[in-house]
């Protein structure tokens, strides 16, 4: 059986990626089970989906395993910022038999070293025209296309048919864009075709027993689900979710601070001496401020380009940097 996990953020098409892959496998004669696992159910929040596919032994043979995949054969990470978010669980159960496909500007060797992984680590190829790798509408289909190739048991025709089936409700132009991206990703992975191997079930002989413990009694003063830390949500750097960075051009800023700071859905635009200042630790990059800014003074630039620029400025010492970097 193939056991596949796909990680991304809400809005990137991660559920759709699992459905495309699931349908493509189903059309290729496999018995399939696919499911999303939504965490916080919010745009930008970590989400993952799973696909299990077994060679069909006959109708009515549903897959008995279900839920989280603890020993994945293939892990797809559509957004490399998730690798640093423990709650996303991207690294769960990866071993030397796993293939990990990461959508990243970094090299495979870099991630292999950073994460101390001895798995087969591959980088999702992106076309030259892609400025923002996490570009929202198509990354899910791109991941599904690459994954389909890595499995080696899905023909491009089955992939295209699966995309047409799953996206039918969105109209032919959307189907076409996704199909083009997915097939391009499929073609780009051809030298790795079939690199993913079917895993085996965990045997009941010689298994590692679970490290069960006795849950100790604790007073309600401790064990009631209370958060004593006042306003500690500020410690969660939701700015990590951002794939586009709004940047205020103060030469054109009209200082009509009420507009952008009020419309920001995350209260991430502060006002200092009548000047709006973006709190990049908590700005999720929704681009609402870009849209509402009356003098059109806020630009949206890909986060990775902005970070590269930050690094350059730090090196050359001419940083006036992200305004809230040390907040």
């Amino acid at each position, binding site marked *: 059986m193939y056991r596949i996990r796909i990680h991304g953020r809400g809005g990137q098409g991660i559920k759709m990626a699992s*459905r495309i892959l*699931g*349908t493509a496998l*189903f059309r290729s004669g496999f*018995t*399939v*089970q*696919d*499911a*999303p*696992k*939504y965490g916080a*159910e919010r745009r930008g929040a970590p989400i993952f989906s799973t696909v299990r596919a077994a060679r069909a032994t006959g*109708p*009515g043979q*549903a*897959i*008995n*395993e*279900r*839920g*989280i995949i*603890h020993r994945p054969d293939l892990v797809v990470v559509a957004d490399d910022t998730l690798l640093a978010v423990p709650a996303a669980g991207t690294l769960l159960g990866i071993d030397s038999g796993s293939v990990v496909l990461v959508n990243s500007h970094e090299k495979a060797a870099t991630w292999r070293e950073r994460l101390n992984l001895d798995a087969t680590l591959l980088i999702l190829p992106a076309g030259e025209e892609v400025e923002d790798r996490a570009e929202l509408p198509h990354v899910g289909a791109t991941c599904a296309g690459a994954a389909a190739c890595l499995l080696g048991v899905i023909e491009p025709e089955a992939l295209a048919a699966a995309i047409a089936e799953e996206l039918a409700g969105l109209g032919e132009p959307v189907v076409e864009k996704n199909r083009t991206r997915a097939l391009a990703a499929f073609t780009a992975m051809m030298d790795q075709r079939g690199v993913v191997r079917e895993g085996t*079930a*965990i*045997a*009941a*002989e010689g*298994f*590692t*027993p*679970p*490290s*069960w*413990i*006795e*849950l*100790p009694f*604790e007073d309600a*003063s*401790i064990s009631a*689900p*209370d*958060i*004593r*830390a006042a306003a*500690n949500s500020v*410690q969660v750097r939701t700015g990590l979710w951002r794939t586009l960075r709004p940047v205020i051009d103060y030469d054109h800023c009209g200082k009509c601070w009420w507009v952008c700071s009020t419309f920001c859905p995350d209260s991430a635009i502060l006002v200092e001496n009548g000047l709006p200042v973006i709190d990049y630790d908590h700005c999720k990059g929704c681009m609402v401020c870009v849209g509402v800014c009356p003098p059109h003074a806020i630009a949206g630039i890909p986060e990775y380009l902005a970070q590269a620029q930050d690094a350059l400025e730090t090196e050359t010492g001419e940083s006036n940097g992200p305004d809230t970097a040390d907040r």
Partner: protein
Amino acid sequence: MDQTLLTGNVAAAWGARLAAVDYIPAFPITPQTEIIETLGAWVDTGEMPGRMVTLESEHSMLTAAGAAAATGVRVFSATSSQGLLHAMEMLYTVSGWRAPFVLVNVSRGLSAPITLEADHNDILAARDSGFLQIHCADCQEVLDGVLLAYRLAEDPGVRLPVLVNLDGFYLSFTREPVSLPDPAAVARFLPPFDPGNIRFAASAPESQAVAVLGGSPYSYFRYETHLAAQNALAVYDRVAGEFESLFGRQRQAVEAYRTGDADIVFYMMGSFATKAREAVDRLREAGQKVGLLRPRLLRPFPTDAIAAALDGVQGVAVIDQNLSMGQGGVLHTELAASLYGRPGAPAILTSFIGGLGGREITPEEFYQMVAVTREAVTAGKAPPPRLLYTEAELREIRKLQAVAQVEREETTPLRWSEDSNQGGAGHE
């Protein structure tokens, strides 16, 4: 047989569509909403006849469902978790009206703390409401269960509402291959509702569900409802037999998987039971005689079928995806009560609490539960109930408590003896 990939939610909606329901009162709640969205789309395009109405709460939704069923039309509705509890007053009321209809519940753990994923405390809170209960383990069973539920509810010897339960996420959002039965075959199995003398109508006013003063008439009506629920056992067996001959799928009141020669048996319900099925296969490969017993029908409780399947079994590992505070697992309690004093009943029932709020149960945990139960059989004594909970999980809680600045006095956050670290050996 043609199969298509459907989520449990869409399978439930297909059940309602194939049952040609007349009326759908609706209210959204995660993880059920996809059911009413799917039905809403079909009603909107005319692919499905019938009338759908959104109500302002689950309490009103259940009132509307019961009232509509009391006019003799076929009614479908769906809810989950907090929604089911919000409607609780009306669950008891409409079953007392003897209004037959089908309500799907998508199981989700109850607040507080609030969560989204499955356990069975919501559906078990409705255990004594007079609704019958069918519990599903996969998406095909969800579709089939809705059809079976209508036959059961509308049988003149039963005439009670039926809850069909599926687990949130693990079934609601999980796609599996499902066979969509031929509508003509469904129409043979489930013809249009013959309401008999159920005919509440403005043009012919009558009084239903009257008040009674005094315990004696009250006892009559309540016990009649109980007798009807008990009748449903035989009706279910007959209906499931008809279903099998028409559609080829076995849907007995109790699934007995490889129990024939088993000495140890898992006993649990819901979608996690398929994980147990998988574990049974692996344990059999390792030469262990292990099986799985899973009630599909929880109300009425199929006592005789369960006792027959466990006859000669040495130990039962009962896995409760629910928790009755101050008592323990509900399935364990009910199984013990139904087996007490029966000759041939297993001597050992071990109790495990697992899967609360959708917490995973791993293959290794299933294997270990068998090992613990085997040890108990040898020792002739069952260990205390065990929560499936690992050292790593407590470590995570300690981290969350640190972030939340919970003031714990313990300075070494992880402290327990080495031998409590050995899974089943932790009780000495």
